[in-house]
């Protein structure tokens, strides 16, 4: 269930990147945010912060611990490709 939720969050984030609702205007509620950052740029900067947050969620709740275990359990010299 946790993994499904995370997949939904990632897909939602991908869709949110296509912010067609701010396509033709630099304004948010009639003004340029902070007087100098057009809303299209401000939104995408906030999107980058959201990406970092989602990555943190993935690391916290979907970290592939079984891979770490497999590496630890195996003798690294064994079955080497060289």
């Amino acid at each position, binding site marked *: 269930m946790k993994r499904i939720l995370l997949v939904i969050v*990632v897909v939602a*984030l*991908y869709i949110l*990147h*296509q*912010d*067609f609702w*701010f*396509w*033709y*205007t*630099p304004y948010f509620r009639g003004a*340029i945010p902070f*007087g*100098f*950052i*057009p809303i*299209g*740029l401000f939104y*995408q*900067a906030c*999107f*980058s*912060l959201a*990406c*970092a947050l*989602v*990555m*943190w969620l*993935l*690391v916290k709740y979907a*970290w*592939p611990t*079984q*891979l*770490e275990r*497999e*590496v630890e359990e*195996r003798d*690294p010299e064994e*079955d*080497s*490709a*060289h």
Partner: protein
Amino acid sequence: MIPAIVVFIYLATVLYIGIFAFRKGKGTEKAEDYFLASRSLGPFVFLFSLFGTNMTAFAILGSSGHAFNNGIVTFGLMASSSGLVIPLTIFLIGTRVWALGKKYGFMTPVQMFRDRWECGHIGTLIFIVQAVLLVPYIIIGIMGGGTTLHAISGGLVPYWFGGAIVAMVVMSYVFFGGMRGTAWVNTFQTILFLCFGAVALVVIGVGMGGFRSAAQALQSSPASAWLLTRERISPRYFFSYTFIPLSAIAFPHILIFCLTARKMAQFKKTVIFYPLCIMAIWLPCVFLGVMANRVADVPEIRAKQEARRVLATQGRTMAPEARDDLREKAAGDDVILLLLKRYAPFWLAGLLGAGIMAAVMASDSQILALSTMFTEDVFAFYGGKRRFGEAVQVQTGRIFIVIITLFAYAVALRAPETIFELAIQYAFSGFAALSPLLIAALFWKGSTKWGALAVTVWTALAVIAVAIFQHSFPAPAPGPPTIFWSLGGTEVVSRTPGGTAVFGFMPVVPMVLVSALLMIVISKITPKPKGTTLAKYFPTADVT
């Protein structure tokens, strides 16, 4: 001259770091130590070196130049989409490749593909396609170094000499320091250019008298108001760009870097901080590129704006050569250098110039990756390591580094830069189209070597086809695209001012989708690898 002296001090510093790394690794002529720093990088160096490896001259010079001519859309197109896709692929693919490398000793992606799909020569073909797509990066790195040193020194350092210095410095620290030297230098460079954006923003902002008035002025003029929106970019084009960052994990130098982490936990910080690092560099550069359009007292910037205006108003009636000439004049890649020259004090311009050099010199990891690939995928695979031993393999890698750097420098002196800028555009799409190889190898036990062959051949053919198409049909002037093939009123293939469109999307979209489809269809009808091989990659799945 002072900025040039600061840049020379910077170059001497990176050379010293490379030599220091050589001394640390001295006494070991092990391939794994030279090419992968003994898989021992800690979290801090791993994060900054992996990030720095992926940031080329385009991160600072190209981003501001693109924003100068296209507006705020640059950030959403190239930066925030990368902030989602690249860390996601590092999380999903990078960690798995690291674990397999640790378990089975892989040092290159091709070694993994050969083992996973039980193939030999198909792996060699993948190596060739990867190498051909990677070489333009090395050439453009040297070109960028020559151009930047020439500009920073006010023309005192000629282009050929600047390029030679950059080539020598990069070659030396990669030659001596191998992966350890490259990673340390990349870490130092990344810290430098992470600082660059914030400092440049403050200095130029103060110099311009604040950004509020500049933004208001841009908005109030019909000639520039569009730069603050995305009205001139189609949503399909914007969407297409989200496929480009798939190339990052398919680049051999990025994947090889993933093998250098000491522990898998090292990936955690990289995955979380990657979007923030991208934002820290791209946001100031894109913003400054847009704001440069309000700088009235720099003649070079005025000339660029004039060239852009003429191109937009009279471009349709011009000969293609005249249009290309105007495009070159309107290009904004040096706009950030011009802003620094105008607003930053001498000593600071030098430090910021060093930050730009740090980004320009990102070709080190590509050179090392090519050397690693050659010695492992060709020299060792075809018996060289068995016959001559590991020490000779490392020496072969070093000789290869010298040869590839000299070759890149010779080409950089003779060929026009635009050719390689185009080649890099194709390379992004090409590596993105190769990404299904990794996904199939790691996540689908039904994939086969024949599917991998189909993906590789398709990628090579598609890149060649797009290159020939764009070379044969010159780009139209800004405005509607030239339609070459339509079906029932729908545009199928058209030539746009910035490239090619297929159903309104950039070529990378059909390239990736067809790659994925070929992998699925061909794999379904061809025999799978042996169960014992599949068990290595899918230990918990039923592979009988």
